[in-house]
């Protein structure tokens, strides 16, 4: 599982620890070229883009921010879509700009499944609504429904 969140670039530590308190699976901020292993979650490190390479490895990059964002959700989605194609599920949650919309479209175009958090439930709707404008998403779910869905596919 890959997690890409817009986050403060100068706050390096603490986020993984905070997420880990709530998580049943280990979460880590990967290093460049780390091998992706099943049953783990990988959080894009602050101030890096996180890509998926074809050999099931992470690649990090300090390329210029995209949509004012680094990490860019679009780039994580696009590279993961190219690597995993129809075996990928892309999920967009609440967020404050259009980042991720184009990426989710790429997930759909490559045959992946797309889910968007119900904008009614979102703290900020921009991200989810932008994604829905660009892509006919497969499911619009509340967070509880997303959790139920993900637990079932195991």
């Amino acid at each position, binding site marked *: 599982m890959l997690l890409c969140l817009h986050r403060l670039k*100068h706050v*390096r530590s603490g986020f993984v620890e905070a997420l880990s308190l709530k998580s049943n699976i280990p979460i880590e*901020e*990967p*290093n*460049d*070229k780390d091998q992706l292993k099943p049953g783990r979650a990988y959080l894009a*490190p602050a*101030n*890096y883009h996180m*890509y998926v*390479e*074809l050999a099931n490895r992470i*690649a*990090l*990059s*300090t*390329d*210029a921010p995209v949509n004012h964002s680094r990490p860019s959700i679009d*780039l994580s989605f696009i*590279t993961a879509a190219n690597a995993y194609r129809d075996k990928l599920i892309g999920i967009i949650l609440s967020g404050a700009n259009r980042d991720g919309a184009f990426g989710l479209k790429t997930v759909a175009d490559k045959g992946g499944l797309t889910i968007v958090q119900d904008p009614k439930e979102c703290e900020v709707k921009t991200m989810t609504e932008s994604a829905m404008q660009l892509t006919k998403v497969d499911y619009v779910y509340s967070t509880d429904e997303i959790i139920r869905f993900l637990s079932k596919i195991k």
Partner: protein
Amino acid sequence: MTLTEQDFQLFLFALKTSSKYDFSDYSEKSLKRRLLKVLTDNKLNITALLNKIKNDPLFVEKIIKEITVNTTELFRDPQVWHAIRYAVLPKLKNNSVINIWHAGCSTGQEVYSMMIVLNELGMLDQAKIYASDLNTDVMEQAQKGEYKYRFNIGYLDNFDKVIKENPYNYEEYYDIPYDKYFTIDKASDTIKMHDFLRQKPVYKKHDLVKEGNPMYVKFDIIFCRNVIIYFNYNLQSKVFDLFHRNLYDNSALILGMHETILGSYSVKFQKKGHVYYKN
């Protein structure tokens, strides 16, 4: 615009055969993305690009510059600078000369960050600063020492964290004014480094992939941050070999926050905190 695997391979092959640049061992994802940007920015399709690469050496230089731009900032990752200031540099205090190499220096913010730390420790005079990059455009910017101030995104917060505060003793605070090192011009949104910093480093064009040590000295510290993420395993090992041969024993190699030494060179360095030391 999309790019097929074949287009990409043709591009690598054209560069390799018609120029001195070889990107075959670069990390694919980043390179593909940058190639796409070059195509869009220059309004070219892949066929036109390949033709230009074969026939126009000046164009090749231009796109190499577009492809190899890397981003950098003042005091990126303060905790790394804390390690440099409080763990690496004190051990070098009594050396008559300290050789420092910024390999892949890009626009030079890291070079200035280092000189500022050295100056705060009273070690700038004994330091020899060398900086290199494949891209001469970014090095010209480095020599100019002029940057967007970007006050709105807290550009100078990291300066405060590294230069003014002591993370090991919160009661300590050094009231160092910014204008000790650079002039801030809010109207044009720029900061300009003072001449005593601008004129110190030796800059040299250098291809980490193809060339040996460009400076003909051994080093006490090598910086190479967020450069090797663009290289594959093979190339990374070649670069680590170059660094290993040109560092003094127990000297420091500073990589990016999320870069690690993999493969056979991992046993030739020892990591303590954020710093690799040559065994």
